[in-house]
């Protein structure tokens, strides 16, 4: 490792006076005079100038390159932005201050140095000053190229025409070193600024991404809530037709029994009756009620004697229509309600409940046979049932006369003729 690559050059090596300045506003004529008159480079000092330059470049590279840019290298392996760029910038500024403190003997105004030395009271003023200095340094960096070209032409001409070539060579060396140092200073400042600006923007974009993610999460939550509400509404819509049919059947049965003539006019008024919640809970007991009704014999037959004639009539088509349907009468139902196996409480005072339960049972029995029932059907079945009962009562009233005729026929029958008449009479029945 050569000795001139030491990181901290001796400050005494740069005591060259205020002879050369390659900063903006540099006039070659005046500096030429200064260089010719005042600059007295010894060979040792000329050798030490590159030492400072190399060490300064190394420090600047560590400041900008190793500190921030090396981590965000080209490979892209570590593109994580710094979370605390302020502290890092302060650290680099302090480091740059220590590096430039050794340059104060060169006495050229550095933008970073001026930033560090100016202590503005408020943050806005400080930021304004920094932005102004940064813009000035950018302008200087743009003008540096033309200055370097003009300086190169000047030194070339002076070396050719001038007698004291050593002096011009020395001034050229000094000018080259300072110009390069100034260039490195400008580039470091600009790169640091650009890097910080990019990190700031990356942080802002990350914050914006977080906000957008939160908004998306909110929207997703709203959509899930809307879907849930829609599913619940659809489920309610599915269950409502079942309740409406039940209410219609209940009220139709009760109206048929109470008002057989004008029942249809009263149905529309009674449909608006709100059943209590217990009635809805009775739906849970409907299968049990259905079983009890199936096991129970038809209550209509209790009114009639189990005669063979009636049994023969029960197989007629009109009788077949009534036999599978339970269609119980309210009085019989109330007597059978008090059984222990009945799920419906016997202390239920409202007759509407019982009508409802049995009408539901009838509807479910019919629905189990896959027969669609309409609200008018139960009324028809109950009306047909009442008509059949009336006919049975009339037949019972006519039975004594027919029995007398039968006895007469039996008494007055003869052998062959009597048998034929008897069979004819029996065939009539």
């Amino acid at each position, binding site marked *: 490792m050569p000795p*001139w690559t030491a990181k901290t050059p001796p400050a005494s090596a740069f005591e060259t006076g205020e002879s050369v300045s390659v900063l903006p506003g540099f006039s070659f004529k005046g500096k030429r005079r200064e260089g010719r008159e005042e600059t007295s480079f010894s*060979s040792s000092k*000329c*050798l030490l*100038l*590159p*030492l400072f*330059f*190399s060490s300064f*470049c*190394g420090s*600047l*590279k560590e400041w*900008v*390159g190793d500190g921030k*840019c*090396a981590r*965000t*290298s*080209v490979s*892209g392996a570590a*593109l994580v932005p710094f979370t605390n760029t302020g502290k890092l910038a302060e650290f680099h500024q302090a480091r740059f201050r220590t590096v430039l403190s050794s340059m104060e003997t060169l006495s050229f105004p550095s933008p970073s140095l001026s930033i560090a030395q100016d202590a503005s009271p408020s943050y806005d003023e400080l930021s304004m000053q920094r932005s102004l200095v940064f813009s000035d340094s950018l302008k200087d960096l743009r003008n540096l190229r033309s200055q370097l070209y003009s300086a190169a032409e000047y030194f070339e001409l002076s070396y050719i025409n001038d007698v004291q070539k050593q002096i011009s*060579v020395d001034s050229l*060396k000094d000018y*080259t*070193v300072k110009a*390069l140092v100034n*260039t*490195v200073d400008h*580039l470091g400042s600009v*790169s640091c600024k*650009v*890097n910080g600006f*990019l990190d700031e*923007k*990356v942080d802002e*974009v*990350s914050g*914006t*991404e977080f906000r*957008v993610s939160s*908004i*998306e999460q909110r*929207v997703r939550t*709203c959509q899930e809530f*809307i879907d849930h509400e829609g599913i619940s509404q659809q489920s309610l819509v599915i269950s409502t037709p079942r309740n409406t049919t039940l209410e219609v059947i209940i009220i139709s049965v009760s109206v048929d029994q109470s008002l057989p003539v004008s029942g249809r006019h009263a149905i529309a008024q009674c449909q608006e009756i709100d059943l209590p919640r217990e009635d809805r809970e009775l739906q849970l007991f409907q299968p049990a009620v259905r079983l009890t009704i199936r096991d129970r014999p038809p209550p209509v037959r209790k009114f009639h004697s189990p005669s063979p004639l009636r049994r023969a009539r029960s197989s007629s088509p009109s009788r077949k229509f009534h036999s599978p349907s339970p269609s119980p009468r309210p009085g019989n139902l109330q007597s059978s309600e008090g059984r222990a196996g009945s799920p419906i409480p016997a202390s239920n005072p409202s007759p509407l409940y019982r009508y409802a339960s049995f009408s539901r049972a009838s509807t479910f029995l019919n629905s189990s046979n896959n027969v669609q029932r309409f609200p008018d059907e139960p009324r028809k079945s109950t009306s047909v049932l009442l008509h059949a009962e009336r006919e049975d009562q009339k037949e019972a009233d006519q039975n004594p006369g027919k029995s007398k005729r039968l006895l007469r026929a039996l008494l007055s029958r003869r052998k062959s003729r009597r048998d034929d008449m008897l069979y004819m009479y029996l065939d009539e029945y």
Partner: protein
Amino acid sequence: MARAGGITNAVNVGIAVQADWENREFISHISLNVRRLFEFLVQFEATTKSKLAQLNEKLDTLERRLEVLEVQVSTASANPSLFT
């Protein structure tokens, strides 16, 4: 005298050679540091480009997500029955 003049010439030549070596060393140092500066600038350019590309990608993603959100919000505002 001639011997003294020869010694003087030798010394002068030695001084000139030393000065030449010093100049060469100075130039090599300058060129080396200019190369380092160039390398730094290239590295900084690549890093800045990658950062800018990453930033651009993030902004594109954000723009698409915002467009999707905008469409969703406009759809929801066009159907107020969803909120009733």
